[in-house]
């Protein structure tokens, strides 16, 4: 079978990357529900669903490698292919982090009620970032891509706030809960970081420059 023409491959790659972001957004959403509501079946579903993300990543890499092999793209098209290969790695990692949240939910050590609202908010920010990253991947909208950086600041602030809560003298839930919360907060923060990276890769693919150099 002859390879698809390059424009078709590029469109397929964008679509698949978008789908990957949407899938991991859903996974983190469900993992968070499982975590906050103690729903172990839901946690198991997230764990089982991670293979889909890995398969999508393999598909992106397969098409990207074919594009390099058969069409030897240059300039903007080459950047687009390479940035897709890198982005697919980031989104796969987001899937792994959602999986870690689900695994924590399945461990049957519920989080103290006083941190539920913070985790709900971290999840909302992270899922939002992944949904936006999906749109950026599909539409290659550079303005939206730059917005993600600002959204991520809210996540960083919340992440820092969590440590403040744990280190405060009034913390009464003991060390195991503090360790769980430390790692979980890190998973959300890393998830958000990878979403930002996906958006930055898109800016780079479209403009040939890192987002910091874009006057928006």
């Amino acid at each position: 079978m002859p390879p698809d023409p390059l424009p078709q491959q590029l469109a397929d790659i964008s679509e698949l990357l978008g789908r990957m972001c949407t899938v991991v957004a859903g996974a983190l959403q469900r993992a968070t529900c499982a975590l906050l509501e103690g729903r172990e079946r839901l946690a198991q579903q997230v764990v089982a669903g991670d293979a889909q993300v890995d398969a999508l990543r393999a598909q992106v890499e397969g098409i990207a490698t074919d594009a390099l092999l058969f069409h030897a793209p240059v300039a903007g098209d080459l950047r687009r292919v390479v940035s897709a290969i890198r982005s697919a790695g980031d989104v796969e990692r987001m899937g792994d982090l959602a999986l870690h949240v689900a695994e924590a939910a399945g461990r049957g050590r519920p989080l103290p009620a006083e941190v539920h609202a913070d985790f709900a908010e971290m999840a909302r920010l992270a899922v939002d970032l992944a949904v936006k990253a999906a749109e950026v991947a599909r539409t290659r909208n550079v303005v939206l891509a730059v917005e993600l950086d600002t959204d991520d600041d809210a996540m960083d602030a919340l992440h820092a706030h969590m440590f403040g809560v744990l280190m405060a003298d009034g913390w009464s839930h003991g060390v195991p809960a503090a360790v769980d919360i430390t790692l979980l907060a890190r998973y959300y923060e890393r998830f958000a970081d990878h979403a930002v990276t996906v958006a930055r890769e898109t800016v780079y693919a479209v403009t040939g420059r890192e987002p910091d150099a874009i006057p928006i």
Partner: protein
Amino acid sequence: MRDAYQEQLDDLADGLAGMCAQVARAMEKATRSLLEVDLQLAEEVISDDVRVDEIRATAEEKAFALLALQAPVATDLRIVVSAIHGAGDIERMGDLALHVAQAARRRHPQPVLPDEIKPYFAEMGRVGVQLAIKAGDVIRSRDLAAAAQLESDDDAMDDLHRHMFSVLMDRNWSHGVGPAVDIALLARFYERYADHAVAVARRIVYVVTGRMPGPLTV
């Protein structure tokens, strides 16, 4: 005589192997800064991290030039694609060494680690640094047996990581929440560092065989 193209490919591999050596040194110093409460060492790691980022940028430029000008196929294409992935992994290893150094700096002059925890981190540091050095060797040699060796070395890191958590979660833990939070994150940094080294070696397996080894469990 080797042609210019082959030289470019070797140059790319050399750049990545050098990057592994750089992040191995960074983790070695970061671990010492943590264990010996040495602020100056921590600062060195923190200021040297831009060098890793620079080597990555250079490696990526080389990879792009190869793709654009030589349109490599087969094994050569796999080398270039793997180099792009590898550069990302190794840069991340540098970031993780940086995080360890930042933890040492943040608590200075207080030690981050209680004395009885230090041996575990000395060992995690040793295993991590060895993995980075071995990953660099594998990039140069493309030796599949050496690549497989990284996976079993990583099991030692996973065991240490798991053990660290059982220590923290034990009811006899007497150092309170603050150190436990620091240690939980630090142990994770070492474990992730090792995972990225293994990922680099796995990419080399893909270069040589055209197939990725089974899924990496993270």
